[in-house]
């Protein structure tokens, strides 16, 4: 199972780098959720099923949704700013 652990660890690192290197925020957030799911698996490898559950539900799930939702707001605000060139009063 050592090989699996090495792969998982590298996967975590890769996912994290992906989050940082990606130029698209949306892709970053998706990779962040992937990272969270990988981390959930990692916690089971560390015999911490509670953490696996929490990571899946909170870390990846809820945080991911919050990020995605915010992304929508940001995009709309950007569009709005572009459509109305003049500054808001």
């Amino acid at each position: 199972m050592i090989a699996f652990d090495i792969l998982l660890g590298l996967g975590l690192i890769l996912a994290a780098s992906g989050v940082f290197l990606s130029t698209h925020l949306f892709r970053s957030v998706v990779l962040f959720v992937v990272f969270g799911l990988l981390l959930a698996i990692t916690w089971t490898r560390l015999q911490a099923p509670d953490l696996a559950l929490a990571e899946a539900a909170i870390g990846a799930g809820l945080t991911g949704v919050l990020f995605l939702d915010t992304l929508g707001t940001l995009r709309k605000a950007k569009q709005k700013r572009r459509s109305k060139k003049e500054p808001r009063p």
Partner: protein
Amino acid sequence: MNRTLRIAVAGTVALGTLYALLVAILWVPEIQVNLPQQVALNLEQSGIAHPITAVLLNFRSYDTLLEIAVLLVAVVTGLALRERDALTASTEQARDPMLHALTRRLLPLLLITSVYILWSGSYAPGGAFQAGALVAAAGVIARLAGYDIASRADVLLRLGLALGFILFLTVAVSAMLGGRPFLNYPEGWAGSLIFLIEAVLTFSIGLTLISLFVHAPGDSSPRGGADDD
């Protein structure tokens, strides 16, 4: 700051951190205190069979109390920053029949799972936080489907948010009234009290996380709640 300079500085700091952490991890001295053993020895006395729940809600319950306070602070700030004149909810989402149907099937499932996770927390992995997160997930999905939950910031919502904390604090303080230390559970009651606290916490945590999502400024808030008391 110049971009290359910035990267150089950040790279140096990051590499330094990496080196230091690896040194610290690989040359870690031999541990002297065996805390897991102590947990195991005192597990029976704690009234909870699952060691992590025992640590969270009995041995180190003070941490958890403050942690709930952190959640509350976050949501209070969230409520404070609500926009009064926020745009109404995007109604198309609510009319989406697919989402609506899916939500109707998914919601009960999530809620039942959360109850199960809460229940299992006393002897197996699970507990208030995970269950609360599931409740929140249910709430978020319902919200996305257009159900109007927790959008009003009246006193009931605030009570709901604070309920878990209130109960926790009350139990903790009542110990002092009985002459026992703060955060102590009465003999033999620990298990049931902890379960009760966890159940209420699940509700409050769920509501808190939903509120943080629902009341976040932006297009998703249907209308700003009034501040009337």
